Every structure is written in structure tokens, then in C-alpha cells.
């Protein structure tokens, strides 16, 4: 509710990255992530180069380390999962005295963790320097099917509203003395979730009605459509181009 300005993932700053064209930024991030993903884990130097590229992007985008690491915490579960691999991996073992680990597993864990951090890092840079409507516009400029972009847009638009509704119901429950501590007290929460689902469904119908009322015939409109210039493309793609080159060298020399 109220008049907050932007999404929690957005950093309010004016940096060259903030002013870069959304389509180019989205493409750059996708390319960077792809390069990271195909790099063999044993080419550790390549990941070092990627990390430097990412660090430069963070600095240029004026994203603070604190903000970065807080957002990065979201991928912690995946990284923890990766840490199991060395214990259960097969093949040659590395003896650390008190525990023996799989050498193959260690490299795999390193690969998963490094790729997850770099991939999530790139996403943090993108949404930290690009507001949600601009990301959607970028996707549209990249010729992502309009239906998919529209669905993503609706999700962003109404997710907050639905979360708010759920929050209000939760408050109403608390206000009437509901303080669940045990699993068998979860029934009202499940019911609230059900009610929220039905309400969201009904809202969907009303929104569709509102769209029809304004002449909707299956096509979403475009506004302020400005394609990026070649110079803007070149600037945005410099970083992922370097990453791609590194990935190719890493694969060839592996």
C-alpha cells in the first residue's frame, strides 16, 4: 500500500548502468549467464575473470557490497546443497585426515557454487539498475512473445496486491487472538490461502472485464518504443562479449 517508489530489488542511483537501454542490459545478462554456465569448472581462472567483470559491473552500477550480499543470500540453499556433492561423489578421494572427499565432487561443488553466485550476481545487477517496467520493455524489445511479457507484467502487478491481501487476513486473524504455534493450528492459514486464491481468481475475471471494457482484443499496446542504437548495444555487450571469449578459451583449453 501507499506510495513507495520502486521494487525492493531496485537501487536508487544514477549510474551509467541505470541509464543503459533495458533491452541491451537484459541481453547482456543472458549472454553473461550463458557464458558462465558453459564454462568447465576445472578452468578456475575463467571464473576469476567473470568475478572481476561482475565486480566492475557492481561498482559502475553503484550497488553496495551490503546490498549485493543480502540479495545473494537468496541462493544460499542451492550452494548448501552443492556442498553435499564432495561427500557423496565417487572416484579419486582427497584425504583431509578426518574426512575423505571426492576430487570430482569438489570440482562439481565449486562449479555449482561459482555459477550460482555469478548468475545470481548478474541478475542482481540487472534488477538493481533497471525498474521492473523497463525490464518488461527490454524483454519486449528482444522479441520475447508479447503474451509471455504480459503474463510476467501481470504477475509483478498483482503479486504484491495478493501478498497484501494475505497479510491483511493474517492481521485480522491475529487481531482475533490467533497465534499458531503448532502444525495442527495451521488450518486457518490454509483456509486463508484458499480464500486468497479464490479472490485472486475473481480479481482476474474483473481485470479481464476492465480490459474488455477498454477494447482489448488480444494484443497488448506498446508505448514509447525506442530501439537501442548500435553504440548502446556495443557498450552493453562489451562485458558479456569478454565473458563469452573467456568461456570459449576455457572450453578449448580444457
Amino acid at each position: 500500500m501507499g506510495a513507495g517508489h520502486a521494487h525492493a530489488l531496485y537501487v536508487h542511483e544514477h549510474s551509467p548502468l541505470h541509464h543503459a537501454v533495458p533491452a541491451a542490459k537484459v541481453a547482456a545478462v543472458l549472454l553473461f549467464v550463458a557464458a558462465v554456465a558453459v564454462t568447465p569448472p576445472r578452468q578456475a581462472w575463467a571464473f576469476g575473470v567473470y568475478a572481476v567483470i561482475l565486480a566492475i559491473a557492481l561498482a559502475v552500477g553503484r550497488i553496495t557490497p551490503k546490498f549485493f550480499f543480502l540479495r545473494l543470500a537468496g541462493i544460499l540453499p542451492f550452494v548448501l546443497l552443492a556442498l553435499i556433492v564432495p561427500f557423496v561423489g565417487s572416484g579419486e578421494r582427497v584425504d583431509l585426515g578426518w574426512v575423505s572427499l571426492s576430487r570430482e565432487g569438489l570440482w562439481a561443488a565449486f562449479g555449482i557454487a561459482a555459477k550460482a553466485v555469478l548468475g545470481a550476481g548478474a541478475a542482481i545487477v540487472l534488477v538493481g539498475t533497471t525498474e521492473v517496467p523497463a525490464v518488461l520493455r527490454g524483454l519486449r524489445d528482444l522479441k520475447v512473445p508479447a503474451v509471455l511479457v504480459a503474463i510476467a507484467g501481470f504477475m509483478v502487478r498483482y503479486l504484491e496486491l495478493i501478498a497484501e491481501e494475505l497479510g491483511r487476513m493474517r492481521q485480522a486473524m491475529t487481531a482475533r487472538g490467533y497465534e499458531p504455534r503448532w502444525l495442527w493450528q495451521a488450518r486457518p492459514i490454509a483456509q486463508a490461502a484458499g480464500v486468497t486464491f479464490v479472490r485472486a481468481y475473481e480479481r482476474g475475471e474483473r481485470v479481464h472485464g476492465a480490459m474488455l471494457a477498454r477494447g482489448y482484443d488480444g494484443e497488448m499496446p506498446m508505448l514509447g518504443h525506442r530501439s537501442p542504437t548500435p553504440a548502446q548495444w556495443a557498450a552493453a555487450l562489451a562485458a558479456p562479449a569478454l565473458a563469452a571469449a573467456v568461456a570459449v578459451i576455457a572450453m578449448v583449453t580444457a
Partner: protein
Amino acid sequence: MTPALQIRGLRFSYPDGREALTGVDLTVSPGERVALLGPNGAGKTTLALHLNGLLSATAGEIVVGGVTLEDATLKETRRRVALVFQDANDQLFMPTVAEDVAFGPSNLGLRDEELEEVVHAALERVGAAHLADRPPHHLSGGEKRLVALATVLAMDPEILVLDEPGSGLDPAGRRILLEILAGLEVTQIVITHDLPFALELCPRSVVMDGGKVVLDMPTRELLSRPDLLAEHRLELPFGFSLAG
């Protein structure tokens, strides 16, 4: 003169069999502002949803500016009759305010500069041009209501149907909305429970009850008849009285 809107014998039942409209007759002249009053469940919103074909009647007909509403004239009618919904969150679904206002005119075929001009003009009319690039879900309730109004003004409608436009607004927001609506030269049908709002904006009032029109008289006259008001669960705010 051709009436702006003519409704004859309109009946509607919901799929569960509940009869919401039981024969509505109503004629509205061009430029007229009519308050649509009545208790909850009287069928006011159901009637509004019929006016641009979001619900189709089981019987009766709707004629907008001489053109009967049917499948072939649906698209045209939706341009001519604009609906402002009760919950602005239902109406504002695009990522930014400007894109939302552009939604209607873009469906009418406007593009590029022409489209941007219309969007800007509509936002100017409600004094919300500065909100153009904001995401709708970050606006205050009053701002949302104004932007919702802009989204339909951008379609240059002949009839404006507003469902509870003043509800949930603070007094200043309500005043701003009243002034904007009073300054629009378009036929308006205003659904409201706020009788002073109706009095200020609409010289004529139509009361619905039980799915049909039961009273149709000047607003001032209606509001000075406590017996009629009470009969249809209407009530003036405490301390409010009409002089004379």
C-alpha cells in the same frame, strides 16, 4: 434529439438463477449527469456492467446514441461507453501509469506520437501528468482513482459510467474528483451512496431497488423527502439538511 442512452425492459439473471435486473427502463439525454442510487444489491453495478456489454441481458435492449448494443456493435459501444470500476486495482493493470492510460486508445488503433499525445492529454485532464512513469500499485488511493478516470477519458467516450467514484477518498481527494467530473462535458451516470456527492454533481437522480428503477426525480427534490429516502435504505449524513 437522440437520447445518449436508452434502456428498455432490461432483465438479467446470474447463472445461479438470482435475478439481478427485473426490467430496467431508463432514458438519459446527451450531456446529462444522472446519479444512480439505491441500496446494496439493488442491481446498480450489474446495470453498469451491461452498459458496455460486459454482461449480456436475458431480455430487453440498450441503445447508445441511436445504436442498439449487440454483437456487431460491441466494440463501438465499448469506445462510446466508458466504465470506471469500483476498485481501481481492477482497472490499472499495466506496469506504468502511462502504459495503462495508453491501453484503451491503443486498442482503438492509435500509435506512436498520436498515442502519446492522447495519453498526456488524458493525464493532464485529471491533473496526474506527473504520475506517468510510476507503477500503478505504488500510487495512493486518490491518485489511483484519478488515473483510472484518465484511462477511460483517453478513449474519448460519450458516456461515462462511474461506480462509487468517491468511496474511500479523503475529503480533499473527493473534492478534486468532484471538480474534475463537473468540468467534463460528457454524459455521466454516477453510482453512489454519497448523497451530497450526488447532489453536487447530478441534477437528476434515479433510484434502483429490487433490480428496477423505482424513482426518477430531481436530486434536490429526492433529498428533501426523508420518507422516500428511508423507503430505499438511503440516508443523508448526520447534520445535513437541504435549506428551503
